[in-house]
Structures are given as C-alpha cells and as structure tokens.
C-alpha cells in the first residue's frame, strides 16, 4: 500500500564521494520490505525522484543517494529540520522467505543501498548472508563498515583497485569463487546482467528504470518478462531470476 506523507529531515550528510545518507522522520508504516523505494517531490522538478530505502523502522527511514543531477543535488543541500513530500511504500521489495541458506548480497554503487536492511532482515530470520559490493574507487565506498558491523562477511571491489579487490564486483565474486545458493542483486543493469551470467543460482534482481509516477499508473517503467509485461515500480523493482528475459 502506497502512502503520501510529509517527512522531516533528521540528518543529511555525506558518507562517500558525491554520496549522501539522509534520515527521515515520519510515517513509515507502508515501508514493509527491503528493496522497496520511495518517490520524493523536489521543488522546481516536475517528477519525483525514486530512491530505495536503505533502512527503515516504523517512524524513520534512511536513504542513501548519489548526486548525479539537479534533483539529487538539491536534495543534498536540504537542511535538517526542513520537510519533504514523499510517496512511500512503493514496489514489491525483496522476499527473504525465498532465500537459500547461503545467500549472496551483491550490489554496485549507490544502488547497493537496499542491501543493508535486507541483511538485517535475513539475520533476523536466522540467515547470515555474505555481501560483495563494488564501487569505482575507494572514496565512493559506503555500506562496507555497516554491513561488517552486522557480522556480514563483506568483499569490497573497486574498479581502480584503490580499495579491496581491483575490478568489477562480479569479477571478484567469480575469481575468489564465493559459494552461494541464492543471490540478491541490486545496482546498474550491466552489473545485474553480469551477476545473472555468473552462475545459474536462483535469486532476486532489483532493477532501475526512469519512472514518472512510481505507483503503477503511467506504464512508464514497464519491462517485458517471461510472464508478460511488469511495471518495475509496482510488480518490481525486484524480479525473480526465472522471469527475467535475458
């Protein structure tokens, strides 16, 4: 169930190069699963900006976003104490009940944000995941310490080798021969494709697409799947391996 709510900014700080973490106070009752996202109205911008939930409780949530254009730039300049108009509880999110015993969480760049809450939920359900996250360079890395704090074994890759393994996160996973029986992946599409090609292991993949409404009304974000068209904002952003048409 989606909901239109006012949130107050509690904190908005830089956590890595061009990357910010924003903590919002308000009604989070519609945010029920990791992998769901919210859609934020920003002054002077016609469309809302979709951002995944990195972490949520009933009355506060954390988003992690990268400044790429004028919307995210404006967001990065917003001060604690000011308010935001947000559409929450969007998308299906990850279903942890389908996970195997040894899931791998794999993520790239700012898109990796949902993995934190996902790890928490898995651990709550008695499953300790592994995580492999990739970035361009050391100064962009975030989430590694937080995941480690949860007890999750984390492998960091950077394209330029300035931290962790050098190369793409999928290269690293392949090279070190990480064993896993299920995968939860989120990040840019080329990364998702690489994960998909890495092994036949089942899993859930979270997609990004340009969106207008974010709640299923405009068909802007549709994706062809093996079981017909799906709206990534509604029947996604998470698709099962078995339905992806690659």
């Amino acid at each position, binding site marked *: *169930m*989606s*909901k*239109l709510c006012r949130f107050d900014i509690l904190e908005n700080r830089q956590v890595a190069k061009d990357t910010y973490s924003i903590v919002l106070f308000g009604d989070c009752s519609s945010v029920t699963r990791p992998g769901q996202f919210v859609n934020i*109205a920003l002054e002077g*911008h*016609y*469309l*809302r900006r979709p951002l995944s939930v990195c972490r949520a409780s009933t009355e506060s949530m954390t988003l992690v976003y990268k400044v790429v254009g004028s919307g995210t730039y404006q967001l990065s300049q917003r001060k604690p104490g000011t308010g935001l108009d947000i*559409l929450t509880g969007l998308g299906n999110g990850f279903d942890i009940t389908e996970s195997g015993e040894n899931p791998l969480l794999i993520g790239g760049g700012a898109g990796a944000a949902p993995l934190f809450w996902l790890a928490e939920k898995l651990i709550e359900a008695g499953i300790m995941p592994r995580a492999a996250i990739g970035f361009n360079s050391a100064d962009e890395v975030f989430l590694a310490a937080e995941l480690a704090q949860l007890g999750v074994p984390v492998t960091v890759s950077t394209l330029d080798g300035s931290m962790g393994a050098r190369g793409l996160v999928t290269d690293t996973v392949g090279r070190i021969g990480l064993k896993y029986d299920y995968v939860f992946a989120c990040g840019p599409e080329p990364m998702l494709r690489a994960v998909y090609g890495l092994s036949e292991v089942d899993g859930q993949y979270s997609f990004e*697409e*340009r*969106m*207008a*409404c974010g*709640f*299923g*009304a*405009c*068909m*802007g*974000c*549709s*994706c*062809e799947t093996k079981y017909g*068209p799906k709206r990534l904002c509604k029947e996604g952003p998470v698709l099962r391996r078995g339905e992806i048409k690659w």
Partner: protein
Amino acid sequence: MVRNTQVSLCGIKLKNPVMPASGVYGFGGEYRDFYDPNILGAVVLKGTTARPRFGNPTPRVAECTSGMLNSVGLQNPGIDAVISQELPRLREFYHGPVIANISGFSVEEYASCCGKIDGLVDIIEVNISCPNVERGGMGFGTDPELAAEVTRAAKGATAKTPVFVKLSPNVADITEIGIACQEAGADGLTLINTLLGMRIDIRTKTPVLANKIGGFSGSAIFPVALRMVYEVSRVVHIPVIGVGGISKAEDVIEMMMAGATAVQVGSENLRDPMACYRIIEKLPNLMEKLNIENLVDIINIAE
C-alpha cells in the same frame, strides 16, 4: 450558498467536471490507496487497442520544465481483456460514468474496438493521435479527412454510446479537424493530446527516450491547450472536454471559461496522486470566491 459543480456531457450527468485523462489512471484501480475514485466526475481508461501491446522500449518517460515526455506507446491488454477483465474489476469499486479511450492503427481497428465496447461504457473517446499504418504513418489526427473517416467508422460501429474524438495539437489549424469530426458525426471532442517534444541527455549525448521523440504534457502546455479549446469551442456546437496542463482548481475554471464542458487532469496525477481529489475539494470554495453559483454558467463565457 450551495455551489453546484454538476455538468452534463451528451446527457450523461457528472457530479463535477473533473476526471483523470486517459493513460494516467490505468484502468481505475491504481489510486485507491489515495482516495475513493467515486468522487470523480468520471473515470477515463487507458488507451485500448484491438490487440494487446507492450508499447515502446524504455526509457519511455523524461522530465521537462513544468512537464514531462512519454513514449509509452499504448501499452494495454487489448480490447477483449479490457472488456472481460478490467471493466468488471473497475465496476466492483467504482459506480460512476466510465469513458473508454480507443486507439487504432487502421480505420478498421478503430471500428472494431468501438463496436465491441459500445453499450458497455458511458462515452467512447476515440484517440486519433496515432500514426496511420495504412497510409504510411500519416497521423489520423493531422488530416481532416482521415479524422472524419475514423469518426464515421466509430459512429458506424456504435449504436448506444456517444463518441468523442480526441484531437492532436500537432496541427496548424485545429478548428479544421474539430469541424471535420463534428460533421462526420462526433458527439463531442476532447482536446488536447500531447504535443511532440524531445529531450537529450547531455551527459550521454543521446535522446533520453528510447523512441527519441515523445508526447509532451503537464502544466507547461496549459496555454496551448486553453487556446485550442477556446478556438474549437467557438466553431463547433458539440461539447468539448478540455485537457492539457491542468493542475489546480483555477485551471479548471479557466478551461471551462474557454469553452470546456468538462476537463481531464493528466500528468499532474503522476506527480501528485491526490491531484484530482485536491482539485475537486477546492472547487466549491473557489466558486464562492469568484461568485459562481453553477459551474455550467461559466462554460464558454470568456469573450
């Protein structure tokens, strides 16, 4: 004083003139998290074609200053599924007037869809902004003769439901098209559909839309829509539904003064899912401020 927001379209009474535009309201269910659709003057369904369509490749939306582009390309499950599944589903929770929006790539397709849905909805809105596949892609909506042909076909295939023709704004003289549709038997007109627009991502140096060019909508286009509604209303005697850039109650009043009997709110719903609710709630208050007793009194009043 009680403010009367009722209007009527070809005998169909609407409790207020505000309805969502086709393509931003799916088949009626997507806004139930936000408000009860029964507050609407009518519900307008997503554009429907003879066969199911996925539409165009993504990205198929893009942002603009005070507006957006879309190149969704009529994604819909096809007329048969709309009739057998979507309409019954809608009737479960919505009891007001329903307007179907029909598109086609040949005159025959239009006629067939209209015939199938005749009698099952309150108004059929025939969207003639599609390219005509038979005549090499020339738009049905940019040539008065083709527009008339589609109108005649739709009217010929229907016996019970009034037919409105939804016009494209991408023409030099929209009155010409409006008159042609009226003469061909249209019971009403809806205007406007989207303008053609484009955006390029300067970082990637490529068009934002996979389809390159898309339909431009949102508050930005309001003055163009208003002008066209004004021009057409002055030369036809059938009712006009005004659409294009409406985002607030004031816009509804302005569009009606230009000649619209009812209005549709499109893209604004996508950025604010409460848009129609907000507008409808504000209307009586605004009527009071402007000293309007019956909304019907202001239709076409601006000279």
